[in-house]
């Protein structure tokens, strides 16, 4: 028993070191934003300043890259969400034998290195006379982001009771009405989180974009090039802002998810109580 507790304590210490390892670099990077040193570092601390935020704000290149990232992210949603929904529905509706094969083909982009997706997209469209640029970045990213959306929608779709579709048809609804009124509302949460994930994946993509971007710059490309040429703590300022936005988003998403599951539990409980009181009446 003694050694058992000792090994647990060892584990706890290890966990502490692990968390330090995970977060120290991020803290250092964030802190370096406020150091007056021209090279981003915390050692030595030359004085506290916020001028690197100003420098970032005045960097026209950053704004162009940011705008490009938003444009790509928007169009990746436009492309990958409908395709991902269609793919999930097709996968759900085909014969079991075809399903396995189709599934393998559809998830293969998730296991393919991003650089290779970028290269194959570049070469393929070059053959058709299309050169690199934002549009090609959208196509390249969508080819694997669609798979993420497909998986999320598929998971939701598998929890769908298809007799609801039949019931709606039986009550006189057309196929279009069934989709709009019955299936789409059911899939809505998966579609929304799919869209959020799609934007996020697009926004932080580097490998695929590197090969398909042509001469355009996205925010990730901008950061990487700044690190190698012309690094100042303005990059840290950008990183700090992105981290803050990400953390806020992740926490909000998590709270939303937990609240959702709490609501589902409450509804189930209410139905149970209703059932009980109905029984007592009967």
């Amino acid at each position, binding site marked *: 028993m003694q*050694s*058992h507790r000792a090994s647990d304590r060892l*584990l706890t210490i*290890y966990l502490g070191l*692990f968390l330090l*390892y995970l977060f120290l*670099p*991020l803290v*250092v*990077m964030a802190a370096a934003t406020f150091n007056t040193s021209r090279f*981003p*570092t*915390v*050692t*030595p601390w030359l004085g506290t300043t916020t001028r690197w935020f100003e420098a970032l704000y005045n960097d026209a290149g950053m704004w162009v890259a940011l705008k490009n990232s938003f444009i790509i992210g928007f169009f990746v949603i436009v492309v990958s969400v409908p395709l991902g929904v*269609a*793919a999930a*529905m*097709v996968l759900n*509706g*085909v*014969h079991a034998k*075809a399903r396995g094969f189709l*599934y*393998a083909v*559809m*998830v293969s982009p998730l*296991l*393919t*290195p*991003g*650089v*290779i997706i970028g*290269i*194959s*997209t570049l*070469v393929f469209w*070059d*053959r058709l006379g299309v050169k690199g640029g934002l549009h090609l970045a959208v196509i390249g990213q*969508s*080819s694997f982001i*669609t798979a993420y959306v497909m998986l999320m929608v598929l998971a939701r779709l598998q929890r769908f009771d*298809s007799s609801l*579709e039949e019931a709606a048809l039986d009550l006189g609804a057309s*196929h279009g009405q069934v989709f709009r009124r019955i299936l789409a509302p059911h899939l809505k949460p998966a579609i929304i989180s799919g869209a959020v994930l799609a934007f996020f994946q697009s926004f*932080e993509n*580097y*490998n695929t974009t*590197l*090969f398909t971007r042509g001469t355009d710059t996205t925010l*990730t490309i901008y950061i990487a090039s700044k*690190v190698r040429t012309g690094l100042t703590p303005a990059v840290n300022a950008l990183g700090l802002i*992105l*981290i803050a936005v*990400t*953390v806020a*988003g*992740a*926490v909000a998403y*998590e709270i939303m998810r937990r609240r959702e599951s709490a609501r589902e539990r409450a509804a189930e409980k209410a139905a149970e109580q209703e059932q009980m009181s109905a029984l007592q009446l009967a």
Partner: protein
Amino acid sequence: MSELFRRYGTGMALAMLSGVAIWVLAMVVLPYFVMVEYSFHPNLTVVEMGGPKDHYTLENYASLFRGIDLVNLEFPDDFRVFLRTLWGATLVTFICLVVCYPVAYYLAKVATPERASFLLLILVIPFWINEILRTFSWYIMLAYSGPLNIILKALGIIDAPVRWLSGSGGVLIGMTYAFLLFMMFPLYNALETLDRNQVEAARDLGAPTWRIHWRVVIPHAKPGIAVGCIMVFVLAASSYVVPALLGSPGTRWFTETIYSWFFEAQNWPRGSAYAFILLGLCVAFILTMMRVFKVGLTDIAK
């Protein structure tokens, strides 16, 4: 297929099928084929394409291996890079596994549920942060007069600062950091399903801790280990940012070689061939892991 038409009607079924066809064919399958086909062509100008010089060749693949001298163990540059990538990715995968295992075990089986869910939330945060930023943070940490050298010196572990960024240490550290959590979550998911009683039973039977892990916990975690290794290996082998930011000319990565064939040497067929070789390496690794650990594609996609 007929079920699709029955459930959604002709119009919608056709729309869905054409959407899937566009994605699967025009965005996934055909680009692969074209890339592979391209890699068997010599590097020609647009004018020469389809002309007499345009014939299929293995030259782009052969060039990677040409000049290998197994007797004197001399390798050509590109092949050396390839070997370094293979070895480096393997090493990173192994380090990630070793580093993550205790944490995943702690989260899944030792910590209380509330504590575990809090820690998981904490762990997810770096996961969401851009790979480039995570790498960049180590660029600062590893600088010659950066925090790491100062800490290590203060602890008395080193006497003089280390030039992390000019050896391969920086790349390995950066990659481990960047891809660690892709090992953590599959491992955690697999360990979470382990019945705590199994561990208790083994302990009750007098098994020492290492043996419990070796005989009970690790076998149970196999699918998670496989998935984690696949994710980390593929990400590491195909990483571009980490070696570009934390490496030096002496620690070139295969992706960098591919990139330079494309955009510096303007030799797309050669670049395509190398890309295909990289893809082959990843697929071989994935298939090996799937075979060894007996996991299916659906397990990985989770």
